[in-house]
């Protein structure tokens, strides 16, 4: 379990610097990719613009499948698209590379104490998936939850009523939905990275035969699959939750 650099490490408000930096990095990657795609916008798309338009179409299909009406679909499209490709890039970052440095001296200003260093054998993580952090994924899930309820509150009467009908157990869902929404993403990505770390740590047979390599390759392949799927799952659940609370145009 590697250590992370923290801001305000010893207060009630510790900020994981690696996670935030990786979010910014993933966001920049997405932004740069999109800028390349829209660099020469054309009515007849070619090359990278085509790929990105395919992603937009994909998002639109996803939103249309989960949203009650066209108006909400148009409203959610930018967020759904951003979420989808941002999470896709974020999930893949930790697969492409994780960078950790070995520190021999504790840095108390960044929350790297001697105790934590000894726990992590001196490893301090500087580059991994931002989604491999539980607080970050829960943050996104709670943000989606807030957006959903903000939309629901546009129709306060229906919003109040939908908690008790058809079943009062729906209140329970208001807690479990964001929790599972965030934890699912975190669990999948963190597990992928953790196992990669373990496979990388398998000692070589006779000092030169990489016994862990086949396992590593299989797991990398599978993790890539999981990373892609989880980006999609998180986005479609976001559409579903927000669509469920968008009462305008719903039949019931």
């Amino acid at each position, binding site marked *: 379990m590697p250590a992370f650099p923290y801001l*305000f490490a010893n207060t009630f408000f510790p900020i994981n610097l690696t996670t935030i930096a990786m979010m910014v990095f993933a966001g920049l990657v997405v932004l740069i990719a999109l800028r390349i795609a829209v660099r020469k916008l054309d009515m007849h798309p070619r090359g990278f613009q085509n790929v990105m338009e395919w992603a937009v179409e994909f998002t639109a299909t996803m939103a249309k499948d989960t949203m009650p009406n066209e108006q909400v679909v148009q409203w959610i499209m930018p967020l759904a698209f951003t979420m989808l490709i941002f999470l896709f890039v974020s999930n893949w970052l930790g697969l492409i590379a994780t960078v950790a440095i070995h520190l021999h001296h504790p840095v108390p200003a960044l929350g790297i104490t001697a105790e934590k260093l000894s726990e992590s054998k001196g490893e301090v993580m500087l580059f991994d998936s931002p989604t491999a952090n539980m607080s970050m994924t829960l943050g996104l899930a709670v943000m989606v939850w807030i957006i959903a309820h903000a939309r629901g509150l546009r129709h306060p009467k229906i919003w109040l009523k939908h908690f008790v009908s058809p079943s009062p157990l729906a209140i329970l869902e208001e807690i479990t939905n964001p929790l599972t929404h965030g934890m699912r993403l975190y669990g999948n990505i963190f597990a992928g990275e953790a196992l990669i770390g373990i496979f990388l740590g398998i000692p070589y047979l006779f000092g030169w035969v990489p016994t862990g390599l086949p396992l590593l390759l299989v797991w990398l392949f599978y993790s890539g699959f999981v990373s892609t799927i989880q980006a999609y799952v998180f986005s479609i659940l976001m559409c579903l939750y927000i669509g469920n609370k968008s009462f305008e145009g719903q039949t019931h």
Partner: protein
Amino acid sequence: MFETGTFVVSIVTFLILFWLIQRFGFKPLANIMEQRRLHVEKQISDAEQQRAEAEKLLAEQRALLEQARQDARNLLDAARARADEQARSIIAEAQAESQRLLDEARQLIERERTEALNAALQQVAEITVELTSKLLRNHVSETVHKEMLQEAEKQLGELVC
């Protein structure tokens, strides 16, 4: 190991990134896609309009063609009727002409017959008179002869008529 700071700051970071991405990446892309969609829709509606127009023109042409055909048929019918009429009148004329010729010929024949009969009667009368006078030269005076002639003429006239 839930971290409040990471939790809050990641939400804020994501919102900032979201704004940047949707403003500088998503919006131009969505705009061009919307533009293309409108363009395609316009093309389709244009094509549909043109097709409707073409259909209308075709129907018009068909109606015109039908009209022309009808006209031709009418003309043909009229011409045929006229020809029939003409033929009938020619035949009628011919029949009348032939009837006239026939009548004329009949009248001629009648006249000739009458003439021939008259001539024959004349001759018969003369011959009779001659023969009678030869026979009765000595027995009949001039006055008796005249009476007998008148009698014979009268009877012959009755015979002829």
